[in-house]
């Protein structure tokens, strides 16, 4: 049983038990354009919510990726680092960035569900 949330910074986070998988949304990938470089965090790093954890760079610009929930980095997407275009072709699947192990009860109140995120995109468009 998994649940997916979205942040105002255009990240998605899929929660399965105590593991949070994080990526950028299809909207973010489309807006950034062709991705050419991804900087991923060290495994084992302890991060707080809102902290800059990764960087995705398109041809045009670099964009920070924030931790949507606190936790310890368990795994990073080596395939994405090798081929950043995965972030464009399947941003919300194979283009995931990193997995966090959450400690205790995470607070999702700042995050949106899919319908909420679509509404948010509509407001900011």
């Amino acid at each position, binding site marked *: 049983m998994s649940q997916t949330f979205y942040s105002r910074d255009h990240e998605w986070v899929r929660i399965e038990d105590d593991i949070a998988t994080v990526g950028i949304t299809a909207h973010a990938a489309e807006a950034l*354009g062709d991705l050419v470089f991804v900087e991923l965090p060290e495994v084992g790093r302890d991060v707080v919510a809102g902290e800059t954890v990764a960087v995705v760079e398109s041809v*045009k610009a670099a964009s920070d990726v924030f931790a949507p929930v606190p936790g310890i980095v368990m795994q990073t997407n080596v395939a994405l680092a090798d081929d950043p275009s995965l972030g464009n072709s399947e941003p919300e699947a194979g283009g995931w960035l990193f997995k966090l192990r959450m400690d205790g009860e995470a607070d999702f109140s700042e995050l949106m569900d899919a319908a909420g995120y679509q509404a948010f995109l509509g407001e900011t468009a």
Partner: protein
Amino acid sequence: MEPPPKPDALKLTRLDALHRACGGRMVPFAGWSMPVQYTGGIIAEHLHCRAKAGLFDVSHMGQLSLAGENAGQALEALVPADIIGLPIGRQRYSQFLNAEGGIIDDLMISRLPGRLFLVVNAANAAADLAHLRQHLPADVEIVPHPERVLLALQGPLAGEVLARLVPETAAMKFMDVIEAQISGQQVVISRSGYTGEDGFEISLPGEIAEQFAEDLLKDPAVELIGLGARDTLRLEGGLCLHGQDIGPAHNPIEAGLAWSIQKRRRLAGDFLGAEKVRSELLAGVSRRRVGIKPEGRAPARAHTPIVNEHGENLGEISSGGFSPTLNAPIAMGYVQAGFAAPGTKVFLQVRGQNLPAQVVPLPFVPHQYRISDPNGAQP
């Protein structure tokens, strides 16, 4: 900081509807609404231009003519290039310099029968016009051409594509410029551009521009290319972008543009900024524009500090990004003169890390200009 102009205040080119119909992602650029990319994306557009032919709308660039017997001589007071010696049908690259030798703008100057035809940067067009009006004598007539469209057709197939529509372009070589007729209207065509490829820039009246662009796009070799790929193409070509690689804080010698200052002008020193240009040529520069190749995958953007192995500052990146041709990051920047030799190891400070990089020769991708007369002997 001035607030960015409201979208509805942006100027639209005559091809605005075509851009939108072709999926152009329109962004504000120097007061214009311009396509940064189309549906293919920057990398695909870039590679298409290097492989076939790319069509760019660069109508945001400023176009103007200087008429009058005295125009060439008068313009020489403001640019360091030899304009008096520029024959009819030829084009030259030059810069407007300020009194301190700083680069106010860079521009292309063509000599046509009875006039000089200038193309300047969009962001500087108004200032350039004011500069010309301030300094040129009354007998030189300054005629801006805001109604004209400027198209660039660039790439290895540009020559054969354009020759099908305008046959007289087939005989042109690099930096030739002609007046021709398209749909009964006068156009100006130069064999030059901003990609490092063979290609043309075509100045034409607004009312025939969309039809001509559509005629070019009917050729299967031709695709529209946005400003995003224009930037990556020119960076691979080692070509300067005013406002980044050159500006009022740079002189043409440290920018590596001494080749654009002909000998007569160096000797005479009779142009605005000549004192600085001559002293830089004589005494040597303290810093120099170079190519920078990061060793890893991380791009280094403009203003990234360049340091030596002890972390001491050597300069900064002026343009940096990703090369689709090399599938690797590339950059240009200024370093202290002692660190400008190709092969010099430097470090780029990106997000708190010192990333290894090397000074390399420019361009990153060899120019493909049609230097020889296509109908004549090979050089």
